[in-house]
């Protein structure tokens, strides 16, 4: 039987904490999405999720 094993780091292990100097939540999210798309994640092989407001 063939199996596919999905191994993912546990929460917090490889998560990136960012601080942006933008007060507006929508603008902050847009800026962080840009950072993720350009460097923090490679959209070809990785997805990302943004949680505003800390842990």
């Amino acid at each position: 039987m063939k199996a596919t094993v999905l191994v993912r780091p546990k929460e917090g292990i490889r998560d990136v904490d960012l601080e942006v100097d933008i007060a507006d939540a929508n603008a902050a999210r847009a800026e962080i999405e840009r950072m993720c798309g350009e460097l923090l994640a490679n959209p070809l092989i990785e997805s990302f999720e943004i949680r505003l407001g800390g842990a």
Partner: protein
Amino acid sequence: MSDRPLVAVVVFPGSNDDRDAAWALGSVGAEPTFVWHEETSLPGGTGAVVLPGGFSYGDYLRTGAIASVAPVMSAVREFASVGGPVLGICNGFQVLCEARLLPGVLRPNRQLEFVCADASLLVEVADSLFLRRCTIGQELVIPVKHGEGAWYADEGTFVQLAARGQIVLRYTADVNGAMGNVAGVVNEAGNVMGLMPHPEHAVDPLLGSADGGLLLAALVDAAAAHRLGAA
């Protein structure tokens, strides 16, 4: 000024094949010069750029990711945009993919083990800038040494690249789980190439193969032509 074409070898923190690359380039007629990652321009008269192997920035985030946004990469990007030949070897290939100067990405080897061996490669395209000293179907033996060398692209991109002749080198056997056994690709313009095998480690028959010299010598040819064109 030397008659030899100037080839810039970019050095990132963690590069470890920069000196081998410079030595090998010198052995096939280039004047190699090192360029530190913090530089924002390439030396005047640069005819080609090599991004060498290693573990730039400790492979932090993803292999090649941090190096792809190093200050020197703006200059490399600009050089490539005007047709300057750029060759990325192993980690340099990873950097070029992360910089979006080449399609795809390099994933961990399928076997999840570091592979270090002579690899047999098939030349798929011989009219490439980098393979002009080879013939289509020619088999080259060039060593690989990597843990994250499985080239990957989405299916549509892969088909498109194959149709355009951008897949220039393939392994003759499954070395690392690379999609389509791809070992090397070029950009659409053809002046940027990346490959996981190390041509700089195959320039002397005493070391097992001189096939890598064919690629590097072609790069030096291209460097000379680019320098003339830019003059």
